């Protein structure tokens, strides 16, 4: 599949190609080419810096939704050993919008859960574009409880635009499934590490999003409502999503400021889609670092702190009587 470039990525890609071509055609031996190459490379560095240090919230949303961005299945392949996917909620069906399973990281057993959008059109349909039904949430909880029972930490990747809004989803209790997960995850007696790797879409994300440590990749976002829906409500015009994205303060930096996340995970130059391997390496180091100290915290303290962390979220004014 040919890569897809966002509007603001284009000048960078073009310049990169120019450098590559010059390399191939003339080689570095030619003194004139060498000078030209150095010049272009400096220009590239500056262009990247200018672009990525000045991203608008909407551009970040686009990066988070980039169709070439690595998904849970990519990270599982690149980070974990001996992965075995576990299917089904044991009640109704298997929901491929959320992948669950068991695996190892540096020899340590972990439970893995993650949204999966699917890459090719056929896969995207199979995974329902990463939008889960109640069964997805129930499957995730079933597998999390497996982790709890056998004392294995839980690692979760979130990248979903929303929980699926459909007739079947409502018939089978989308709200109830998400609510049960949020409550159950509050008191699960094993470490839970959450990483938002793309879209953190409202309740659909929070349904697998309660953990001891919640991290967000640099260009990922987390929002109470999709910018398009917000714009449609505010201005009756979904095309004003870029303004809504700004109003919603959904960027990683703002999330950290609001204390709803515990940290930001660095991305490779230009975003995770530009370098899967590097993105995975950074994630792996992050996971190992957090698992290391989380495993040492006594379970009751872990749960206490988790509940307390979410209990303290929110901003309001104190008033005098």
């Amino acid at each position: 599949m040919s890569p897809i470039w966002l509007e603001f990525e284009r000048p960078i890609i073009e310049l990169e190609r120019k450098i590559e071509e010059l390399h191939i055609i003339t080689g570095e031996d030619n003194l004139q080419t060498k000078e030209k190459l150095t010049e272009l490379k400096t220009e590239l560095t500056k262009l990247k810096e200018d672009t990525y240090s000045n991203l608008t919230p909407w551009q970040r949303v686009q990066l988070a939704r980039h169709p070439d961005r690595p998904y849970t299945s990519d990270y599982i392949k690149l980070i974990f050993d001996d992965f075995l996917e576990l299917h089904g909620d044991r009640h109704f069906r298997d929901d491929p919008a959320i992948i669950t399973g068991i695996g190892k990281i540096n020899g340590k057993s972990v439970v893995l859960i993650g949204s999966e959008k699917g890459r090719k059109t056929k896969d995207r349909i199979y995974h329902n574009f990463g939008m889960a039904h109640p069964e997805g949430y129930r499957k995730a909880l079933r597998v999390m409880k497996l982790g709890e029972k056998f004392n294995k930490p839980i690692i979760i990747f979130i990248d979903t635009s929303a929980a699926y809004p459909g007739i079947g989803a409502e018939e089978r209790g989308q709200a109830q499934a998400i609510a049960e997960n949020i409550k159950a995850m509050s008191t699960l007696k094993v470490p839970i590490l959450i990483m938002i790797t793309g879209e953190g879409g409202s309740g659909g994300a929070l349904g697998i999003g309660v953990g001891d440590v919640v991290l967000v990749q640099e260009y990922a976002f987390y929002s109470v409502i999709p910018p398009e829906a917000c714009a449609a409500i505010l201005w009756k015009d979904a095309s004003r999503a870029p303004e809504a994205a700004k109003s919603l303060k959904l960027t990683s930096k703002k999330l950290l400021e609001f204390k709803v996340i515990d940290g930001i995970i660095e991305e490779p130059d230009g975003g995770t889609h530009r370098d899967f391997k590097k993105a995975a390496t950074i994630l792996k180091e992050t996971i190992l670092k957090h698992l290391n100290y989380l495993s040492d915290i006594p379970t009751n303290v872990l749960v206490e702190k988790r509940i307390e962390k979410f209990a303290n979220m929110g901003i309001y004014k104190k008033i005098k009587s």
Partner: protein
Amino acid sequence: MWFKTKKGIKPAPKREVPNGLWLKCNGCGEILYNKELAKNLWICEKCNYYFRISSKKYIEILTDEFTLKEDLIESDDPLEFKDYTEKLKSGKERSGAKDAIITGEAKIGKHRVAIGAMEFKFMGGSMGSVVGEKIKRIINLAEKEHIPFILVGASGGARMQEGILSLMQMAKTSGALARLGEAKVPYISILTNPTTGGVMASYASLGDIVIAEPNALLGFAGPRVIKQTIKQDLPEGFQRSEFLLEHGFLDAIVERKELKTTLIKILDFFNS
């Protein structure tokens, strides 16, 4: 400030219905006299249409004594969201409430309870930081005092104007309920029209007992969003109380007039 609700401390100005002596039923178009309607708990005698009533009204209907809990907090504007300050102000004026929920301690029959009732007239009953915080605090009180917790839901969901902070109130309240459950303190959730979105996908769905008024709109996604997504018309009665009961998500549908006696029955079960 204790007051006997049965004997009728002056109810709040009835802004939930148009002023005047009469109004037209939204269900059948019949002209109804306010006085008669009030006697019938704002239900049309002709067609059983349920008029929406305020949080205060629910407290009056359900409890015998009520002490309002003043938490001394109010909504801020952390996102500096367009028009939010104005909306808060008009929400206060329209509803007479300080935010989209009132909480307190109450007596229902012989039972002491902690209770919250959401106020739909305040920004559609939306849940922001204050709503979440007040719910957490009343749940914590129920846990500490070991008295049952009752919540009357009426909400369109999380409050967009507080962005991600609103979403996190789902986790805050659900965490408090997890603790309440561990302490074996009962929680009864009463759902009224409408209870949807992030409120339905957190505390409203988490009752040990979940009951609803008839024909209330209850669900996760709004019908309009679903319709847009699937590009089909929605089946008759979709996301109404009866639909949820049929699919196994409600313990019972209870008429407004029966809510209090039903509550007492449930509380009697837990407390004896």
